[in-house]
């Protein structure tokens, strides 16, 4: 008998099957994922998801008999009171009547198929077709980070990089080429000598063999088993690596005019952006800056939930952001993203300052700057668009986008619009 321990075998043997399954049901799953994302609260978008999809393409049909009609005979256990000839009223029409052996095990009759997507699968589908906007490439060249990659062999190196296979191969070919005597041959010779010494009847052969052994020993000393010329090391080469960290600035107006609903919309947008950046960068920092007539860096809880009163001066947030970038996030080392959410209010006199700051200080720092105007369609008494919208509209920078979002259902489409693959490719 054999006992084999298979526990260490690679897991996920059925991964390929799962991928085929997900591909087949892709349309339905994608729809379910999008629907799920508009319903669930933001904080758990980042988890796996149990979803139900219609069976459409997932049926495994067969020629099976119908569950109803015709004459059927069952043999059933557990008779307590019946005798031959008794009649039993049929159970009301539903599955699982007496002897319900005809149920279809493979979900022939089921309309939905329920299963769990892993977090990665969920996000893949959720953020499918989204692409980061083309980045300013000079940032990459300035990058200080280096990645090491294999680059052939070298004759020098540290012992930890020793390439044993190459070294031993060189050693073997050198030993063959220089005819180094094999240990087995020498042992044979020694045994023959020992035998001759014991019975001592052929002294000539004995001395001959001794000489030969002597020669072999000298040779094996002269041709070492491993020579420094054999040794090879794996060589690694340093190549500059794209910066794989990003910082995301969340700027939000928290003055009295921002309702809970507006904040919720903003929060959803930030959340999507965070998930998205997290998929693209190894490390993502978030900085929350909220402002009224003055701006402050706060933690997440305060950012979303504590209330504040005051006027609205947008430029203060931009000043604060510029300050933080200068202090902590050098644009050389960080990809900088900013998303600003506001109901569009701003103090009139501040508009000029804001636009000056944005074009001269903020946009050059950022990979991408998104402005989201949340809340009901707002127009002032002249029927004009909001102050901030009008102000920002005059900025024409490729790394700046602005959208209006009225309700939850619009968040995801707007987000997709901003980052859709076609758009980012169309850009110069």
């Amino acid at each position: 008998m054999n006992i084999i321990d298979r526990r260490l075998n690679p897991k996920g043997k059925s991964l390929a099957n799962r991928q085929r399954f997900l591909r087949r049901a892709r349309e339905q799953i994608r729809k379910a994922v999008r629907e799920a994302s508009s319903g669930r609260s933001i904080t758990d978008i980042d988890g796996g998801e149990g979803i139900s999809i219609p069976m459409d393409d997932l049926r495994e049909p067969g020629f099976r008999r119908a569950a109803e009609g015709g004459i059927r005979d069952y043999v059933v256990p557990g008779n307590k009171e019946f005798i031959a000839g008794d009649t039993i009223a049929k159970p009301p029409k539903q599955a699982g009547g007496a002897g319900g052996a005809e149920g279809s095990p493979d979900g022939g009759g089921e309309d939905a198929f329920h299963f769990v997507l892993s977090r990665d699968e969920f996000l893949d589908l959720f953020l499918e077709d989204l692409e980061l906007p083309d980045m300013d490439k000079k940032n990459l060249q300035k990058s200080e980070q280096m990645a090491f990659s294999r680059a052939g062999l070298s004759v020098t190196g540290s012992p930890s990089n020793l390439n044993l296979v190459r070294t031993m191969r060189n050693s073997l070919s050198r030993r063959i080429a220089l005819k180094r005597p094999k240990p087995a041959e020498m042992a044979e010779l020694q045994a023959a000598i020992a035998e001759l010494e014991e019975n001592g009847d052929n002294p000539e052969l004995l001395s001959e063999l001794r000489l030969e052994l002597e020669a072999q020993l000298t040779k094996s000393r002269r041709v070492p088993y491993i020579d420094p010329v054999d040794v090879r090391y794996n060589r690694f080469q340093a190549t500059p690596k794209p910066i794989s960290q990003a910082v995301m600035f969340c700027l939000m107006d928290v003055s009295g005019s921002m309702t809970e609903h507006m904040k919720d919309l903003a929060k959803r947008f930030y959340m999507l952006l965070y998930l998205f950046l997290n998929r693209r960068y190894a490390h993502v920092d978030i900085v929350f800056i909220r402002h009224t007539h003055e701006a402050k860096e706060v933690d997440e809880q305060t950012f979303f939930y504590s209330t504040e009163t005051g006027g609205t001066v947008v430029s203060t947030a931009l000043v604060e952001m510029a300050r933080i970038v200068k202090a902590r996030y050098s644009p050389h080392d960080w990809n900088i993203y900013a998303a600003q959410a506001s109901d569009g209010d701003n103090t009139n006199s501040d508009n000029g300052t804001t636009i000056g700051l944005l074009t001269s200080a903020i946009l050059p720092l950022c990979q991408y700057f998104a402005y989201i105007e949340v809340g009901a369609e707002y127009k002032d008494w002249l029927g004009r668009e909001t102050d901030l919208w009008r102000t920002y509209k005059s900025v024409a920078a490729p790394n700046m986008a602005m959208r209006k979002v009225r309700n939850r259902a619009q968040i995801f489409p707007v987000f997709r619009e901003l980052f859709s693959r076609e758009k980012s490719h169309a850009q110069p």
Partner: protein
Amino acid sequence: MPSHDGLLFTGADWNFDKLQRTHDAIARIAHDELGLDTYPNQIEVITAEQMLDAYSSIGMPLMYKHWSFGKHFAADESLYRKGMRGLAYEIVINSSPCISYVMEENSMAMQTLVVAHAAFGHNHFFKNNALFRQWTDAKGILDYLEFAKGYIQHAEERHGQRAVERVLDAAHALMSHGVHKYPRKRPFDLAEDKRREKERQDWFQQNYNDLWRTLPKGGATPPVDEDLAERKRALGLPEENILYFLEKSAPLLAPWQREILRIVRNIAQYFYPQKQTKVMNEGCATMVHYTIANRLHEQGRIDDGTLMEILHSHTNVVFQPGFDDPRYAGLNPYALGFAMMQDIVRICTQPTAEDRAWFPDFAGNNDSWATLRHAWADYRDESFILQFLSPQVMRKLRLFHLHDKAEDDDMVVKAIHDERGYRQVRQTLARSYDIGALEADIQVADVDLSGDRRLIVHHRVANGILLDPAQAGHTLRHLANLWGYKVQLVEVDENGAPLHICEDMEPV
């Protein structure tokens, strides 16, 4: 014998040493005392996740890739993670060596049970049962699956996943109609052909009626009939192995597509005996583990606690709730098989007058294991029940026969476990395990070769039960895709008169 001394193990934890010792002790009982004849064993320890993996690929250690396995995995996994379903303690594969998967979570007592159950019970059954001997090739199956997997992977590389998936989907839909149900077709031989030809002539002569000669010749009806007979002969119709028919005769399939049909067909054929021997196979394994566990205890090789744990699982496995119990889900094959086999032992050793009347062949022969081995070797569920279900077991399980006619408001109790009812209950139960009762009888009846090449498929309706229309529609679509032209399904009654004609299905 000295090696029989002492406990095999103590405590709940298992290790490879204990497993080996226990296996050897069990092997001694199984081979020397019970006379079992098994393939060499290979026991593989796996994790719960690997068990789920094995579930999804119909229990085989290697399998080609297909989305449906991924679907089953997703469904099983979501049930398992929610705690709605436990996992089997073992999976055993009809191969030589016989591979049994055991889970690492099992306690040592469970491992003992599993080794006795799978590695000896099922193993003996696989090696000796006539159906398995006739239809499966235990030595070749793993190599064949290796080939199948490689072939389908290669086909995917050459022709694309979608093209292969299309063929596999269709083949899977027809899988249960891809087996030869009767001993293999003999090679075509001329003598046989002549005989058949003569038979046809004879039939024609016997049915000759001079009256027909005087009828005015109308249209071309008679030639069509000759055509039909000729066509049927050439195509080997009617043919109930649809996959075989398509592999040999579908006009538009490429060679690789035919080979895939063949692979699916061979795998279906490999599983064909399992469908027909659920009661016997599980009964045999349960009987073996039960006997062996008790013997080990008698010999002092396992302690009381271990035996109790084994019996606890055993009792769960053979539990049979009554029809009115919410847990009822049909007859439990473990319970029925085990009860019948235990009863065979009783009849062999302590027969009553009733047993002597019912089973004169073996009542009181005092060689119960030889009787069991004979039953395991030569019967399948249907014939086993018909031959061996005793009045005692019917009384114990309180079996009764229910007759359900769709038009009537009530079901009728036709027979119960009493003197008048035994034979009828037994017959009805046996018939319900017949493969003909389990699966619809579908045959390829005709092909319109001169016209639009339409394929005509018949479902021979038994007891007025038609096919599930939605499922039949989807399956026909698959069939049409393989055939390449229109397909028509006709549901016919016992005399061949059409009851219901489904709409023609075009390939897409």
